[in-house]
């Protein structure tokens, strides 16, 4: 859910929209925001499944320290989505 009005941060300023693709779905995101923020805004919370026990994982620290949020971005695995900014045409997949 995007915070459009905030008592301290004010109104969300106008931002350029870019399109990213996640497993067939085309999603709108704001230029410059991290992938994790865009996915969260669209209600996507499972970013990957663990290798051995296939458990769902999402965001944890949100500042690039814990590597919980890694996904395959444009074919490159282990990309930390909380610190990687969206780009128009980016392809994102859950990693297994």
């Amino acid at each position, binding site marked *: *859910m*995007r*915070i*459009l009005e*905030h*008592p*301290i*941060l004010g109104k*969300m300023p106008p931002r350029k929209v870019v399109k990213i693709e996640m497993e067939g779905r085309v999603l709108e995101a704001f230029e410059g*925001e*991290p992938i*994790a*923020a865009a996915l*969260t*805004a669209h209600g996507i*919370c*499972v*970013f990957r499944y663990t290798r051995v026990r296939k*458990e*769902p*994982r*999402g*965001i*944890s*620290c*949100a*500042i*690039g*320290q*814990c590597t*919980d949020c890694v996904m395959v971005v444009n074919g490159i695995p282990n990309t930390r989505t*909380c*610190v990687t900014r969206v780009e128009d045409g980016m392809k994102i997949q859950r990693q297994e």
Partner: protein
Amino acid sequence: METYEFAVVGGGPAGMSGAIEAAKAGVQKIAIFDENPTLGGQLVKQTHKFFGGREHRAGKRGIDIASAMAKECHGLGIDVMKDTVVWGIFKGNTVALYNEGKAQRLTAKAILLATGASENNIACPGWTLPGVLGAGGIQTMMNVHRVLPGNRILMVGSGNVGLIVSYQLLQAGAKVVAVIDILPRIGGYGVHASKITRLSVPILTSHSLKEIIGKDRVEAAVIIKVDSKNKPIPGTEQRFDVDTVCLSVGLSPLAELAWMCGCKFLYVPELGGWMPCRSEKMETSVPGIYVAGDGGGIEEASTAMMTGAIAGIAVAESLGYLTKERSEELRKEKTKGLDPFRCKDFGFRRVANEKLIENIIGSKGVRE
């Protein structure tokens, strides 16, 4: 290979303060490296107003303090390298960097490690489910990225971070169903606690997190009452229907770089765990390597600014830009600025800091 006089790893309040003090004393080639696209460290998500005196920039919001300090850095001619990770410190004060897909290195006469801290977790059943975030994590999502990862939140931990973030969650439009704390009393300042109790958020002390339930994300959390020995009392479970569990259970210093250079470490639980020993001048057991801020022991942003400044002053002295007397004068000032945050309920910090200073005497780099 490029050489700096002073290299600062981490552009948060500690790092920026260190660089600013050194620059003001006349140190010439100073660089700040930060892995983020903006300077400010944890300040960039702090929408609340700070306490303290003028030297702590009290009355200002963290986000504003961050931009003011960043502006000061630029104004003083400090080289600021953003989106740059320092991934190693090698013998001979060699700093290894990673920026835009390339690895490089440079040397510096003095290095300040101001790398901050990482959030702790509680490993109860279900703790890895999507929807379980650290308090800092949720704060980043809502205050920096303007996205709420959930709508119904259980906050675990009633220290200042837990209380402040709960309030900020309410400001962002989420519902905080409760704040729990394993201790029998609220950990943070009364002023922060009353802000949320006024808005009908219950603070349940003597409660611990038992388990988190959900399939693909958090669906509910179960808490349990604990006795005076922190043991769970069976039959006192309470279930909350939430989609998010926020863990605000302390921080641990990120001290890997100090470890890599062979600094002597000490385990100080009151300050967050393992950290490098350091003198009153914030110098570690390895000559030329300094530490400040949460990376040297968990306190808060205001103390980070002071310890960073103390390190900057010491570096300027070591490089010959300040006389011993002048440096002592300045250091006394900054050390006084630490007092309000190390007294009364936080007096344990003073004792803990003294332990770190005692233990550095007579030690040398441990990697030989």
